[in-house]
């Protein structure tokens, strides 16, 4: 554990240097317990990766942070998850507003089957009354967002084109870009590169790296090399528990737990 994690948090909600506090969080799918008393504090503005063998609960943990894992019902939780000073598991929380602050990028790029332009603005239109932004403002937002993910020059003449016709890499860039108009605090990424080829992975990783500082990024990956080169802190999970959470280099160079050492050496998983 690092020194900062143990120091007392400042009393400004959500602005204590951390974006996410997970306290004693357990989760069940029906009778199956997927997470056991998880405690994590995710620092603001850095890239944190989550690694671990398949079925260790890393995706479940990630998908709990925007509560998208509740969509199939049958989910029970205990403990708390505090984001922006608010326990997101409270009953009075609006999941729509939560998902505005906590964006998500999926394993398989999933642009909506509408135009590129409409994809970028889809989230914004859900959260603002119609006519709130002028046409000019919306066009500027689209240009800004697409420029930020390096897609503007490629698609600026075909904004009306259906987004599902883009290449996978372009689709994934669009999926990142469409979060930006919502100005999220946190971006969750569930194996964001696993559908891409090597060159695509490199470019998406560079893009994610460039977002460091402005967003808190939490990235699940099954690719240890990726966790190592693309993240600042790393969380190792096993069987629904957090085994180790340290700066990435420490985790790979001097793992504290034997299980972590075994996993990163590829002895199981």
């Amino acid at each position, binding site marked *: 554990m690092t020194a900062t994690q143990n120091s007392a948090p400042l009393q400004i909600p959500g602005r204590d240097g951390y974006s996410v506090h997970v306290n004693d969080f357990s989760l069940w799918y029906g009778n199956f317990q997927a997470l056991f008393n998880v405690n994590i504090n995710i620092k603001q503005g850095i890239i944190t990766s989550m690694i671990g063998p398949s079925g260790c609960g890393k995706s479940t943990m990630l998908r709990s942070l925007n509560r998208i894992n509740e969509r199939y019902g049958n989910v029970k939780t205990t403990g708390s998850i505090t984001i922006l000073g608010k326990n997101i598991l409270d009953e009075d929380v609006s*999941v729509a507003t939560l998902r505005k602050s906590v964006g998500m990028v999926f394993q398989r790029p999933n642009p*909506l*089957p509408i135009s590129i332009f409409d994809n970028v603005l889809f989230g914004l239109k859900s959260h603002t009354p119609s006519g709130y932004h002028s046409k000019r403002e919306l066009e500027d937002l689209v240009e800004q967002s697409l420029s930020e993910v390096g897609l503007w020059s490629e698609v600026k003449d075909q904004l009306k084109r259906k987004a599902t016709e883009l290449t996978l890499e372009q689709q994934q860039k669009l999926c990142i870009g469409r979060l930006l108009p919502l100005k999220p605090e946190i971006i969750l990424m569930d194996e964001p590169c696993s559908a891409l080829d090597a060159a695509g992975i490199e470019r998406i990783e560079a893009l994610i790296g460039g977002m460091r500082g402005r967003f808190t990024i939490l990235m699940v990956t099954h690719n240890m090399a990726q966790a190592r080169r693309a993240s600042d802190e790393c969380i190792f999970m096993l069987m629904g528990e957090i085994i180790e959470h340290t700066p990435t280099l420490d985790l790979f160079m001097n793992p504290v737990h034997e299980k972590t050492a075994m996993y990163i050496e590829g002895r199981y998983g």
Partner: protein
Amino acid sequence: MPDSTRKTRVNKSLLSDRFEKPIEWLIKICGWSSLAALTAILIFILKGAGPMISKINWVEFFTSTKWVPSPGTGNEPHYGILAMLVGTLSTTALALLISVPLGLAAAVYISEFATGKVKEFLKVLLELLAAIPSIVWGFIGLMVLAPLIQNWFGVQQGRNLLNGGIVLGLMSVPLIVSLSEDALRAVPDAYREAALALGASKWEIVFRVLFPAARNGLLAAVMLGLGRAIGETMAALLATGHANQIPSAITDPVRTITATIAAEMGEAPKNSDHYHVLFILGLVLFVITGVVNVVADLVIKGTKKHV
């Protein structure tokens, strides 16, 4: 022993090779049979229409409402179908006005909102609804709806355009629901998840994601519902009032092309002019449905290109 097993294996592969070609042909024939059936139907109708195709006054046919197919001796027959054409189109339009919103809403509910037993129950119920014979629907129009309409609107005749539209609309609902539900279910779940993760509500997902994504399937569902409403005969005969006039109000009785054929085919002497004209009515229906289908196809292709 090893020799004999090898032998059987060789034989088997020879056998399947021998069947490969005939099976391919069989499948090919099945595929082309729909075209053959369509051609045969067209030939049958044209043959039935026979000499009247050249004898009939086509201008009068489409512009007159005078339908006197079997006049008394010494009088001229009149074959004007304008009123029936209006009757068919207006009942169909009214039917769609009822069945499309109802059918789409029901499909959205079943596919996106209902779960578990409720969903299964509703699907079974819809299948039952689809299996009700059209004559029973006609009875419902005749015995249930007609008195209600008479009371509510204070009209003399409860069998009218409104009655026919409602009955034909309700009849097309199960078809539209089941096809629309298929179309909605075929939309990849990743789209719903993507929209949810952006903070969209369920309703936004329905209108902004599912409808655009399932547009072709939904349009196909509406087209088949339209086909059912245009082609329905028995229920139309019983519910519309069967009066050969252009309606001026929604509570006016009307007459459809299908009902005319059904009602008059029995009394028209075989190979009389009347008999042949009824086949021409069939040809008109054939052309209407053909045009509707082609237009729908073009609409689907057009929207595909633009979006």
